[in-house]
């Protein structure tokens, strides 16, 4: 308790040279840290680039990376910590929808602006919280587009669906199932696995005897890599499909040569196709010594959008430090041409220009080859 009071008092003491803090929240430890780190570095880059501009406005812009461990309980605890620090005006995160949803309720208490680079579950914005925005697509677009791709391009007549029982994984698998049934693809099974386990043979035994054309997995890359490896070991030759949880180089690291042929939908395009994206990837590599991850550019763009809103709010406030509510109102008005494409928000906080991309891994490397780019409702 004493330590807590001390911390609060020192934080208050430091606040006088007008500080604005930008937080990234993503898993930096645990099995999904490869994706989480990519988001964090994207945010860091945007903050570093904007430091000069904010210094001219009279503010010290600081970056505070947070680790939510892909765990809703930790996410909420981090959110409480951020909301207590009045200098924090922008949160970029989270990676996992089941972490973002309860955490955003905490941010909403004080209208702390949250721009999500990667949360695709519909409920993230469907609750119409005024402070919550996302620049990526939604699972009720991603899942159905995946189903249409399976039926129309892969010519699938039947599909076996596996999910990881999380908000995101089961959610996107459900959306896939609904669309698949609606367009006449037979759903032979809908089974859950436990993330963290590595033996999925019993679920795959079911898939083997049912002989589906496609196995669809709603979940993250560690389990996906293991599933496809064990499926091939069991001589299951069906197409292996998934959603943006598979969109990480970890999939190829884990599945090795068995990753070849995997098809995944994602809300993150391959930014290295555009000139701006190439420049970003090169800058990133030079700064951090790593290749960009699927959501690095999304973290970068989300941060820039939030910073534009803060800047607008400062100007509207005659140079005085804006309230959190002002920033979240300004965020909805931002029009931004980002590396990932144009961004503008609707009244729920969804990006009007978000697209769904479909990739196929054609050789043993990440990212795969872009095979389709889709906009609008499937």
């Amino acid at each position: 308790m004493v330590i807590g009071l001390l911390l609060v008092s020192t934080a208050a003491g430091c606040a006088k040279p007008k500080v604005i803090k930008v937080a990234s929240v993503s898993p930096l430890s645990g099995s999904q840290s490869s994706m989480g780190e990519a988001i964090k570095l994207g945010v860091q880059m945007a903050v570093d680039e904007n430091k000069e501009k904010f210094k001219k406005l009279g503010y010290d812009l600081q970056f505070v990376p947070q680790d939510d461990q892909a765990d809703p309980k930790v996410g909420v605890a981090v959110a409480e910590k951020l909301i207590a620090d009045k200098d924090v005006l922008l949160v970029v995160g989270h990676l996992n929808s089941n972490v973002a949803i309860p955490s955003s309720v905490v941010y909403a208490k004080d209208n702390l602006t949250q721009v999500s680079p990667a949360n695709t579950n519909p409920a993230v914005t469907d609750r119409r919280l005024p402070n919550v925005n996302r620049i990526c697509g939604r699972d009720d677009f991603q899942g159905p587009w995946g189903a249409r791709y399976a039926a129309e391009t892969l010519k699938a007549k039947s599909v076996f669906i596996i999910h990881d029982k999380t908000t995101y994984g089961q959610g996107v698998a459900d959306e896939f199932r609904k669309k698949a049934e609606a367009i006449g693809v037979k759903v032979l099974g809908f089974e859950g696995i436990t993330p963290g386990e590595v033996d999925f043979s019993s679920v795959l035994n079911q898939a083997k005897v049912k002989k589906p054309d496609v196995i669809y997995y709603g979940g993250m890359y560690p389990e996906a890599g293991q599933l496809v490896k064990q499926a091939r070991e069991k001589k299951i030759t069906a197409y292996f499909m998934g959603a943006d949880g598979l969109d990480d180089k970890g999939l190829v690291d884990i599945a090795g040569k068995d990753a070849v042929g995997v098809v995944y939908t994602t809300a993150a395009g391959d930014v290295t196709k555009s000139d701006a994206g190439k420049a970003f990837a090169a800058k990133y590599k030079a700064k951090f010594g790593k290749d960009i991850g699927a959501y690095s550019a999304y973290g970068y763009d989300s941060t820039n959008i939030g910073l534009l809103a803060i800047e607008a709010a400062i100007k509207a406030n005659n140079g005085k430090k804006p309230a959190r509510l002002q920033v979240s109102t300004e965020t909805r008005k931002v029009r931004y041409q980002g590396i990932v494409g144009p961004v503008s928000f609707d009244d729920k906080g969804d990006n009007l220009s978000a697209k769904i991309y479909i990739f196929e891994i054609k050789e043993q490397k990440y990212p795969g080859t872009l095979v389709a780019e889709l906009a609008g409702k499937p």
Partner: protein
Amino acid sequence: MHESLAMLPQVLIDGLTLGFVYALVALGYTMVYGVLEFINFAHSEIFMIGAFAGTEALLIMQSSGVLASLPPFVALIIALLFGMAIAGLIAVGMERIAYRPLRGAPRLVPLISAIGVSFFLQDAVRLFEGLWRNAFYLSTPVLYRQTLTFSRVDVPVKTIILVATCLAIMFGLQTFVNRTKLGRALRAVAQDQATASIMGVNVNFIVTLTFLIGGALGGAAGVLFAMQYTLIHPYVGFILGIKAFTAAVFGGIGNIAGAMVGGVVLGLVESLGSAYLGILTHGAFGAEYKDVFAFIILILVLILKPSGLLGETVLEKA
């Protein structure tokens, strides 16, 4: 119903494989419990360390080019011995540092210490692998790629090796505990530490030996597990450890044969549940309920027979 019967042999084989891994890990829990009446919750991390040590041995042999020139059998033995040695030594060190100073303390104190050790080891491995390989998801090199096919059932050669090695280790342990002088000393300490020490048994030495053997068994299980499923990470022991502990209780904790039976039964029940729950309930309960199903059976057994499946037939605890 026809196709669901067709997969039965494969389901049984996969369940048996998983069951033997559970059994080998369960032995570590049961041995320590038998001797100290204390549940070593960090044993799941000893298993994980064994898996990492074995995988590292194979990866280092692979990158130095030795692996290709060695017969797979020799590489397997090297990985197993290395995994067992590292896991056994860490288990002994853990006992010396975290448990022995607490030997006289109330029962819950060493339990909490064990949970702390468990977190420490998880993150220590994560830190080490992060610095050493810049990745903590490791893919274990595959030594045996062949698969034997009997009509419709696929049995990978590595599965046969896993089951055979598990059986050999368990048989060796039974013989050691029941037929050797040290084994007798171990059983004596398990029955009554004070009396055993009056009879000239060095209790501390026997406890160290118990952790060494239990740790080495956990390490062997880790190496075999890594070879079978070819993917390991620092948290891989967590769920598996809980299952193996369950198996030990299920079979009768403190009883070596019970741990084996419990492990194999749990593996089979889980595999069958995962494959058939959806079919039997017409989709109302899918594979995701396999653990619920397995634990319902566990609770039923414990209600009817609180000492576990083999808890009463053997009087000695180790």
